[in-house]
């Protein structure tokens, strides 16, 4: 197992280098640059525009810019934003707690919904309950978050006035009031994301429970006279959840990088909205910071998923 992990880590180094080259080239080759809007402005002389480009090294060829970026990253320096010269890491760190809170909560809520709903759906296949759950799962999965987001705003903000449309991290209350206010602000983005994710997870849980529930060993357990609850939870679900756990591990990186659309709709100051702002202002260092961190997390959690699989399922051996 240790050998396997070490080998995987070693393989991931060239993978990440490859990913970073592709990301950097794509971002650099995209049309537009941080000074796009300046071109329209007759008040800014061409010399100043040139100076600005020089100062950011934008006139160097892409490969030189890449080598510079990779070089400083190797020393642990993520660079500074093109727009306000702030260290990339500071910008990301400032956004991380919000993203972890909102997206993380949504994920927890999604799991809490998906597990029972998925299991019951599978156990009572084709019952009314299963039909309702499946319909909702399909709805939740097929409705894009920008649509559910707007519907929720219309319903909960405009009609009912329960939750604010715009998320703010600047909450003036303290103590208990602080907690309720924070939850009130976070409620809609969490609901929107939870709806989407739980729909996806429910379908995984349901199908993998269905896979095992008709197997012989489950029937044996039942024949031994165990209660239906025990049979389901300790015999069927335990095995059924192995692929689900893997899928969950693979989805974890998203918690760190935010949900781009949902954050934009509710103005949640998380990593996702930082990504959009940086895209719009062609802020390459911040963009690279976010997408490359994401790449690292994806590679890492892939490894975690593989290892977990081995731990959970003794039939699988890594050599």
């Amino acid at each position, binding site marked *: 197992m240790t050998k396997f992990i070490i080998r995987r880590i070693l393989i991931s180094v060239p993978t990440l280098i490859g990913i970073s080259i592709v990301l950097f080239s794509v971002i650099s080759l995209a*049309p537009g640059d941080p000074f796009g809007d300046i071109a329209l*402005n007759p*008040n800014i002389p061409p010399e*100043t525009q040139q100076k600005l480009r020089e100062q950011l090294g934008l006139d160097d060829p892409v490969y030189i810019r890449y080598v510079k970026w990779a070089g400083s990253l190797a020393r642990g320096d993520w660079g500074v934003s093109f727009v306000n010269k702030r260290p990339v890491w500071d910008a990301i760190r400032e956004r991380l707690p919000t993203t972890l809170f909102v997206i993380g909560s949504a994920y927890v809520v999604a799991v809490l919904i998906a597990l029972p709903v998925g299991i019951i759906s599978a156990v009572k296949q084709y019952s009314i309950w299963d039909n309702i759950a499946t319909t909702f799962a399909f709805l939740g999965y097929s409705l894009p978050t920008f649509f559910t987001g707007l519907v929720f705003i219309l319903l909960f903000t405009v009609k009912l006035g329960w939750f604010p449309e715009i998320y703010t*991290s600047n909450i003036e209350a303290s103590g208990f009031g602080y907690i309720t206010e924070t939850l009130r602000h976070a409620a809609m983005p969490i609901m929107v994301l939870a709806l989407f994710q739980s729909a996806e997870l429910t379908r995984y849980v349901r199908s993998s429970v269905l896979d095992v529930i008709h197997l012989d060993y489950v029937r044996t357990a039942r024949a031994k006279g165990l209660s239906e609850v025990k049979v389901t939870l300790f015999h069927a679900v335990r095995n059924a959840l192995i692929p689900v756990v893997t899928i969950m591990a693979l989805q974890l990186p998203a918690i760190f990088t935010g949900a781009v659309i949902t954050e934009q709709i509710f103005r949640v*100051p998380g990593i996702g909205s930082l990504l959009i702002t940086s895209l719009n202002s062609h802020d390459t260092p911040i963009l690279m910071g976010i997408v490359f961190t994401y790449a690292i997390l994806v590679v890492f959690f892939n490894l975690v998923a593989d290892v977990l699989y081995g731990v959970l399922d003794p039939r699988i051996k890594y050599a």
Partner: protein
Amino acid sequence: MSDRDWTVADLMDDYQAGRVSRRGFVRTLVGAGFSMPLIVGLLSACGSDEKKSDSGSGTSGSGVRPSPVTGGFATQAPGAAAFTPAKRGEGGTLKLLWWQAPSILNPHQSSGTKDRDGSRIFYEPLAAIDAEGNVVPILAAEVPSVDKGTLDKSGKFVTWKIKKGVTWHDGQPFTVDDVIFTWKYAVDADTAALTVGSYQNIESIDKVDDSTIKVNFKTATLEWTAPFVSSAGQILPKHVFEKYLGKEAKSAPPNLKPVGTGPFKINDFKPNDIIIADMNDKYHVENWPYFNKVEMKGGGDAPGAARAVLQTGEYDYAWNLQVEYSVLQQLEKGGAGVLAIGPGSGIEHLQLNYTDPNKEVDGEKASLKAPHPFFADLKVRQAFQLAINRKVIVEQLYGPTGDVAIYYFYNPKRYVPDGGKWEFNLQKAGQLLDEAGWKKGGSGTREKDGVKMKVLYQTSVNTVRQNMQAVIKKDLESLGVEVELKSVIADVFFGADPANPDNFPHFYADMQSYTATRSGPDDLATAMKTYLSSEIKQKANNWSKLNSTRYNSKEFDALFEAAVKELDPTKAAEAWKKCNQKLIDDVAVIPIVARNNVAAAKKDLRGMGLSPWDSDVWNIAKWYRQK
């Protein structure tokens, strides 16, 4: 009704007369690429209006408009504020929503309105410019004037006296040295400040005494308000920024932690998210500011920002709501806020290419050596001018957020010729094209000497612009012109990349439209340059100059030279009027919409005095709530 012979106006007539059913009306327009909100707008226009004349007269622009929505407060002058608080800070928190978030709080290090607006909460210029183009002293003790001898009649200098007893947020006194430093900061080559354009014309600044400076200009100018006034004029504290002059300027920590003289002090700034500012209890205007805290939240999109103020009332003020008017109207019914529509300076205009975008000469399309096959002919350009239904575009797409534009420069009035007219007349346009030799061929498309009248019309991706394209296309097609539409994402279209042929500087199309903006009421020299023959964008200058239509007129150049040299304000205004008129006579440009500035404010918010020549928050010290 054949597919291409109808116009929007015809269809509206037919519908009103009952010749076309409602469903037929909608289906025809959907087929022509019109969006649903626009069609609904046209339908309601048919229902309510009798057919009005499709031509207009008089100078358009920020004229008196029946505006039930503004309630008159949008243009309220600050001096006229009927309300004076008994003490400062009694108004609680003011919540602003900028759908683009400020990312840096140094007004000289960004050209973005969002950043300069964010900075303006903390920094102040010597003077602001109000909606009517008047200079309002802020850090200056008085407005320079010829009568007092503080403004040179021949435009060579201006003398500023600064207000006494003003302190920076850190307690240091504000002095003329700070003003002089701001000039040096702005023009320093390595600092690469984005406000350099406003300060370039300063030759030297003499320190007359502790509170007076004399600003000497390189070339005599009427535009003495370019430096130290309005957005680009925000004064920086010398003692804070001195050590960050040059290459260090971009990464200076105070860029994110401003120390100004303004009504509010920084409490917290999260770039691209939120600014939190506390009242400056030593502010130099007694009893102001009214609010004791300002929160400027950023991000999201314009319709969402409009909703948060107009419908849900979560925020007090939202800026720059360039959203289809029908959408804004719908949101305004929410009742929490009202639209604050003020005069603007942006002009949505149509450019006709003077050069042929389809012919390559010496490796360059749209070369000066290849005149356009039909736009080079004045009669054709006039025909196109007559074929643009500005009224439908303005009324249906802009509502009160725009007016029909007759001149390219429509504001302030002193530069606009009197009695200007515009006309929408397809019959006359057809006659002009016939006269020019462009006759309808068998396919219904006009042609001459085997050349078909086919145009490519480009603009940026934006719902309003695509609707405008659809309206124009329909009318041109009924005239026998084949129109192909192209829309380019804004990032690319407004970019300056010399390698990208899709941006507006290249203008590799026959027609294009976008909004041109201006920076000050008297910046005509800067703005009119756009039509000089010496400014033509070509490969040789990397398309970095200003004239994208490649309009090339010795007469206009001469009029421009005469106007720039004129230093008597009245005569200069006359000279600029001639330039303005010349552009229309030559159809160097087809103005379409004089755009108003659109914001949304809570019903009880007062005192904004929105000005097209300055930041939305220029008067934030004196914003207040009506009780």
